């Protein structure tokens, strides 16, 4: 079995190829600024360094024996889903309600079954955020489409 470093190195080389191809499509530099260092210069320099280091990583990986990588736990996938859904929900139901739902969903996904602390967190967390950040510091959080009529 190959060491994960070998696979990581190969994936990084692929990543470098994709990023390099993106630099080909950079817009043209206006003529009056063409005496400057081209905008592709620095990204390509970095890409070439990453590619070189990736090759070293591949060779190092080939010399190592593989170790067993632990499987990703279901809780990680559920938490990831909660975070992504929360990001999407902000523009619909607003920040405070989203964070309140996160305060219910993550503890529940992690096995917390005591409803009282979950309920207290779901209420106090958005309330504190509203008081400290919105009222005191003046940060304007998205109200969301459902509650936009309130603002």
């Amino acid at each position, binding site marked *: 079995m190959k060491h994960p470093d070998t696979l990581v190195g190969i994936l990084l080389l692929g990543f470098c190829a994709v990023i390099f191809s993106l630099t080909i499509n950079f*817009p043209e*530099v206006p003529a009056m600024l063409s005496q400057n260092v081209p905008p592709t210069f620095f*990204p390509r320099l970095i890409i070439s360094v*990453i590619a070189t*280091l990736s090759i070293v*990583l591949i060779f190092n990986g080939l010399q190592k024996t593989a170790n067993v990588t632990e499987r990703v736990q279901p809780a990680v996938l559920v938490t990831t889903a909660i975070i992504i859904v929360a990001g999407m929900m902000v523009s619909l139901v607003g920040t405070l309600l989203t964070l309140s739902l*996160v305060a219910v969903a*993550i503890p529940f996904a992690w096995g917390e079954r005591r409803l009282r602390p979950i309920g207290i967190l779901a209420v106090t967390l958005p309330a504190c955020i509203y008081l400290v950040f919105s009222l005191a510091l003046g940060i304007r959080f998205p109200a969301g489409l459902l509650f936009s009529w309130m603002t």
Partner: protein
Amino acid sequence: MGLPGLEHALPVFTDPFVIGLIVLGTIAGVIVGALPGLSSSMAIALLLPFSLYLDPVPAIALLAALYCSGTFGGSITAILINAPGAPPAAATAFDGYPMAVKGEAGRALGISAIASASGGIISVIVLLFAAPFLARVAYSFGPPEYFALAVFGLSMLASISGQAPIKNLIGGCFGLLIATIGIDLTTGVERFTFNVPELYEGVDFIPVLIGLFAVAELLSQAQNLGREKHSIKLSAVKLPSIDDLRRVKSSILRSSGIGTLIGVLPAEGGTMAAMIGYNEAKRWSDEPGKFGKGAIAGIAGPEAANNAATGGAMVPTLALGIPGSATAAVILGGLQVQGLRPGPYLFDQQPALLYGIFFAMLLSNILFLGFGLIGAKLFSRISLVPRTLLWPTVFALCFVGAYGLEQSIVDVWIMIIAGLVGFVLKRYGFSPAPIIMGLVLGSLVETSLAQSMIIFDQQWTGFLGQPIALVFFGLAGISVLLAPTRATIRRLLSEKDRKA
């Protein structure tokens, strides 16, 4: 050697209103610094409009106190929940968090408070007497020297978390690549923006930092559910012993010197000082193998360095009008809106203001030492909160921190993506710190390289005529080669032992 103009500043030192504001700024700084994503630069930017109602001396004293204590405050959450409250505390998490996990949160916080206060006080004293000289040294640096210095800083990544020097260097380059996102300042060309307007000005550092450290840690916590119990041991509330302080004494002194020197270089703030402080603490340690697993010198080194950098950063800000760090840039803006023009003549015309700033920084460092030591037991109690309730709260703070800076939902998505990428990278042995360091240095590296190439008429050989740059390049080469050389020697020695 006397302190010219000190007599004009004496009323400032005894003014109860100024002292009250410094106490307030210190407490606010520790709290803000402790909240992930809410850096002292953001807090100072938010305070700036209110400071206009004050006279220049108390206003700038308040901001300076907040700057010092905010840097220390960042270490609290770095130690307790592995989410640095401020970028300079990133290196503190390497050993601070493992200590908290082992039930030694109080000891870690105590070491952090003592090292931070020592670094801060030493740097203020040094600056009070040596500011003009240090400023002259920093001012003589041109783009080639800055480029070489940044390359040297990045090369140091090879020896941080020494088990994976190649991965650290790749991480650093990855950070540099992220820093190229946005409009290229010299040509006005869009790079990697994918027509997203929010990316035209580049990727903000804070959402990436929060994502890589806190969101990735949230997922790591989910991965380890049910495996380890977070029951706090009694030693969690035990403060550092005299023996602990004796062991970290040299680390604190060394890092204070490093931090002061790095802080004085324009744009080089506490983050780089802390990284180098950590690296040097490890390099000089008798037990480098313990680093990353809860070594007290791994906390003392970066904390002394990042707080020493706050004093250093104020030198070019005040003497030359060139900010020494991001937070110092905000303070510079504060001076300008007060109608003051920072520069060499400020030392002659506004001695009360300058000594007021030095006094505020000195007092703030003493105050947060007490606050940190007394509050260490209280802060340790955060570990007692069940993680099923703690981590949703952390996520909410991450959300607010990422969103609050620019008030943009795109920054929240950047934080989420950085968190997912950080979790995957962590599984394959990549550390988030090098990526952050690359991102911090990205703009400096590219700008100084572009300026150097213009100066040298696009000829790389131009660097050969720059002795200071060559010294930094030489040090960078040594730094990169040192890690594999040490690994090879270690492997040969173990093979020899096995054969014997």
